[in-house]
């Protein structure tokens, strides 16, 4: 059982019956395997976020592509897709530089899964969106600016 996960559940407040079950390992074990990366999701600076992801200072790579609109009508829902054309891609992380907590999501890509994920994120203001890719133990990145006409974190 991973201690970090247990702490996370406690931090969530009011450890309900589901929380107790999870802490006791009664929720599907594979879900508890990868502990939620609290340090990354709590990071407020790009350097801190990168180090919590184990990425250091990743090199920019044209083999990492971000699909996102140049301009979003509302920051509450901004579609972001990441494709990595680097062989043996193991993980993909999406970061929003100007969000209070900049790491939006991380994805583990097992062998056999295509390094191509899409999700939607909140953006408080116009910002660079970063994709950080881990492949064969090395880190790569790409970024793209998305303009936001109405911030999406307040309402």
């Amino acid at each position, binding site marked *: 059982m991973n201690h970090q996960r247990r702490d996370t559940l406690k931090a969530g407040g009011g450890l309900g019956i589901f929380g107790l079950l999870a802490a006791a390992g009664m929720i599907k074990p594979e879900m508890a395997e990868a502990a939620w990366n609290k340090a990354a999701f709590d990071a407020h600076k790009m350097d801190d976020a990168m180090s919590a992801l184990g990425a250091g200072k990743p090199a920019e790579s044209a083999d990492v592509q971000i*699909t996102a*609109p*140049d*301009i*979003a*009508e*509302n920051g*509450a*829902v*901004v*579609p972001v897709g990441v494709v990595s054309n680097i062989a043996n891609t193991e993980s993909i992380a999406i970061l929003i530089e100007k969000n209070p907590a900049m790491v939006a999501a991380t994805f583990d890509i097992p062998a056999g899964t295509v390094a191509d994920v899409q999700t*939607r994120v909140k953006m408080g*203001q*116009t910002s660079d969106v970063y994709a950080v890719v881990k492949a064969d133990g090395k880190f790569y990145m790409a970024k793209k600016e998305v*303009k*936001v*006409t*109405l*911030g*999406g974190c307040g*309402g």
Partner: protein
Amino acid sequence: MKKTIMAVAIGAVALTAPNMQAMASEDLNFDAYRQMLADGNPAELFEMEGEELWRTARGPKNATLEQCDLGVGAGVVDGAAAQLPRFFADTGKVQDLESRLMHCMETLQGIPSAEIINGKFRQGERGKLASLVAYVVTHSNGKKVQVDLSHPKMKEMYDMGEKVFYYRTGAMDFSCASCHSQDGKRIRATQLPNITTSKGAAEGWGSWPAYRVSNSQFWTMQHRLWDCFRQQRTAEPVFASDVTIALSVFMAGKGNGYEAVWPGVKR
């Protein structure tokens, strides 16, 4: 009038991110953004709930809605929304999708219409009705709007709707036409369809109900119209009242022949 414009302008600046001021209106092209949201529209979550509600025995009569006649036969959902509002002989009334569903809920399930009319949007039975709307309109997605205006009661409603559309009222002396009768008009970054044209009417009619990303809510046309009245600073209409149905007949009738994108996704 000048004061009103000033107030609106100040409000717009206050509500807008600073970077917006630097953007010319021709840069505000959200086509790519909207296209990316259309696939996986969260309105699908409401549609799912609506489908379940359609098939679930509920209410004092413990019945499903599977015998509900939306105008194209009992229980037929496919293409039904594209032909609404319409005149229904069994009620002797012109009904839109929402008032017709409300009628079915009352007659088939015994859920009193008053509960919905006196309720609040997104809550209780009115909230459930909205999910049913999401389910029904999804089955007219991509279909051409085909509202039959030949019945005299439909004609009457269309004319009333047109009158209401141009009727100035409220603290700001606004009509629907104040905001919806020019091409390229916006409130902040939001484009407003020109409903005096068929294309514009179809844009408005054929893109609501919709999921609103700004508040994660699903809004029906009744909800949309209610909020237009509120923004107009005039008395908000009673749910499913004639004035709301008349405006719907006007928009749908004017937008006849254009494809509906249902449910829509909005800022």
